[in-house]
């Protein structure tokens, strides 16, 4: 390239750069990390008409103390909530760090949560591992309660609802799990039920909420939840406690307490002729840490008797839970998946669920006690 043409080329480039900069649109400043407000908890309460009250918890860290800002808006969709809250906050509100989504009991009963969860599932900024929960009363009251010596609300609720053996009586339902179960046509989602225990200054998971078509239809106690979880998934099961009739000459029942429980589960679809039927074989191993009876558990025969009695109690408990859930037309154990996997043609999940209470389920529990503690 000749020198003159090079100068011409460079000159015209400079001219274009200068002149064309006027065509640029206004560039809004990109927020820095400090300017961002990360929503950690989102709550949904019912409002008048079709609207809902959305509450968001946004942690604000200062040098002295961690604080949480709460914003509340009345909107029709969750996406609208983020948009409206942005106008109230001095920071850019983003849902990328969301960990917990809570719904008030009234909201789940009357309005249903599927649409809201679907909206959040659609938003790529929201993770799939965000946990869901149902709250007694209003979410706003629970979030704004005074909890002494507890970390920031988002961290506290996230830690409370994350999988732990002690609270494994409900299946730690995340957004993905909820959508998977709701759209799968076999299992139904379960959610933890939280109560504000204001006397003791903490939040407690008191029950398991049963969800059908996105709406709350009933509850399970933690005891019922434990045996149901044992019958749903393989792995570690929370500690269990049962009352057994140990002495045939006495009406008095004795309490047994199993710890470090592991289970194996086998669910089978075994139709009788054309009529559907299921078999559940539940194998449990664990340590018997508390036994209030008079038998000498060092003796293998006595131990086998106790094992048998506890196993029968477990069978009874599982049968009762399945009766309760099938009456409601829901399948929290994902038993129907075994049927779907063997059914040729289009899966008629809804129709089958309606008649679930009439499907016989044969339950067999085998218990093996691996230890009885260190005290004779």
């Amino acid at each position: 390239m000749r020198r003159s043409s090079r100068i011409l080329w460079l000159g015209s480039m400079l001219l274009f750069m200068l002149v064309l900069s006027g065509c640029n649109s206004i560039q809004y400043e990109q927020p820095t990390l400090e300017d961002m407000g990360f929503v950690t908890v989102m709550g949904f309460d019912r409002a008048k008409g079709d609207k809902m009250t959305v509450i968001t918890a946004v942690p604000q860290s200062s040098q002295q103390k961690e604080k949480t800002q709460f914003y509340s808006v009345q909107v029709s969709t969750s996406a609208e909530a983020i948009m409206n809250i942005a106008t109230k906050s001095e920071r850019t509100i983003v849902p990328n760090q969301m960990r917990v989504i809570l719904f008030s009991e009234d909201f789940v009963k009357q309005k249903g949560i599927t649409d809201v969860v679907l909206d959040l599932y659609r938003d790529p900024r929201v993770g799939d591992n965000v946990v869901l929960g149902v709250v007694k009363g209003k979410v706003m009251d629970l979030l704004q309660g005074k909890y002494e010596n507890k970390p920031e609300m988002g961290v506290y609720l996230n830690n409370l609802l994350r999988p732990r053996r002690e609270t494994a009586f409900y299946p730690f339902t995340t957004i993905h799990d909820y959508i998977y179960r709701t759209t799968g046509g076999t299992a139904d989602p379960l959610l933890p039920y939280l109560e504000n225990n204001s006397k003791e200054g903490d939040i407690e998971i008191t029950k398991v909420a049963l969800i059908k078509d996105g709406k709350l239809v009933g509850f399970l106690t933690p005891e019922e939840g434990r045996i149901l979880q044992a019958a749903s998934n393989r792995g570690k099961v929370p500690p269990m406690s049962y009352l057994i009739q140990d002495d045939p000459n006495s009406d008095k029942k004795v309490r047994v307490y199993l710890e470090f429980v592991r289970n194996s589960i086998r669910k089978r679809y075994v139709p009788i002729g054309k009529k559907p039927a299921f078999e559940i074989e539940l194998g449990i191993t664990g340590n018997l840490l508390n036994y209030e009876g008079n038998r000498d558990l060092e003796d293998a025969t006595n131990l086998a008797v106790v094992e048998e009695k506890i196993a029968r109690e477990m069978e009874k408990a599982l049968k009762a839970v399945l009766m309760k859930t099938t009456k409601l037309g829901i399948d929290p154990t994902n038993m129907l998946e075994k049927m779907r996997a063997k059914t040729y043609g289009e899966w008629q999940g809804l129709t089958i669920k309606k008649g679930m209470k009439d499907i016989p389920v044969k339950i067999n529990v085998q218990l093996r006690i691996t230890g009885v503690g260190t005290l004779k």
Partner: protein
Amino acid sequence: MDQGKYKKLNPYHVFFLINNTMVGQGLLSISHALSPVGYNQYWIPFLLGVVTQLVLIPMYWLGMRYPEDNLYVINERLLGKWLGKLVNLVFLIYLIMVFAAVTHNYLRLVQAVTMPDRTMYPALIAILFVSCYIVLGGIKLVARFCMLGFFFTAWMMVYLHWGIQKGEFSHMLPLFNVNMRDVWQASYQAYESFFGYELLLVYFPYIVQQKRSLLHVSGGLWLTVLVYTGVSLVSVVYFSEWQLENLRYPVLNLFKAVELTFVERIENFGIALWVFLVLSTAAPYLWAAKKAMDAVMSHNRRIHLYVILVCAYLLARVQMPTWLRQKLFEDWSFWLGYTMVVIPVLLLLLSLIRKPATPAKEQPQALAETDDGGGTQG
């Protein structure tokens, strides 16, 4: 780099060229593309692998009949100058469209997932710039970049572990409760994920061990089938049929399932790393497009590469109705892709009917280059 040596693609280059050109384009959405057959989808990649293998055989035969010529030269030799040039022009349009579509689709994903409030044109320019840089290094550098892309991203398969852990294995039980229409629709949609091997005849003259190349190409193909089957299996286990049908990028949601103690939202990391796969798909297409333009214009000039880049930029960037972009990037490029797969088979038949192939007396200019700095290398 690679100066003076005409045949430069070693077996492992061919292996990774085939594999990465395919994977970068289709892996993110293969499970979604296969959703018409629901949970029965995981055997379809195997089926499509067999089809691809069968198509590769005539391609290989054609390549062996004209070992010194690329597809564009063979076109002109067998179809005549003008018809050959016309077909080459169609190929050029297809290759530019695929190149633009691959970069555009990736950037759209990045914008949706990681940077929703940023404009994507600087990123687009960056990708075009890097692709150009790779292509300027010649086909060997393209192949080497494919190897790099493979090793940089293959370890991400470990993340499928979370999907398996949480999933329901009974979804895998084969019910075969699908009709032929569903299988056809799923195969048709998913076959786009297998495109990439059609470039074989463009770089065939550069392969060192041409006789054994079918083995190396097949190796690359079946690695792709293995990857697709693995992802498809995990998707079947982890998702419901509704999710498979409605999630555009199931692999993204499989990344979202990952829970590590030291880092959260690993999908952002995965999407960022995906750029290696995208580049290793885009670069071979850009290189092949440059060769096509050389053949159409009967000259080997570097400016052709820049013209293609400008065209791709305009295709990806210019405001156009969504339906038109969809037609261009999905429907038309899809059909042109099938054309590029079928034409070598027709050319083979034509070459069998005509007299046996003889080596070209005079190398067309598009191929007569050496890998010095004078033009696009390779």
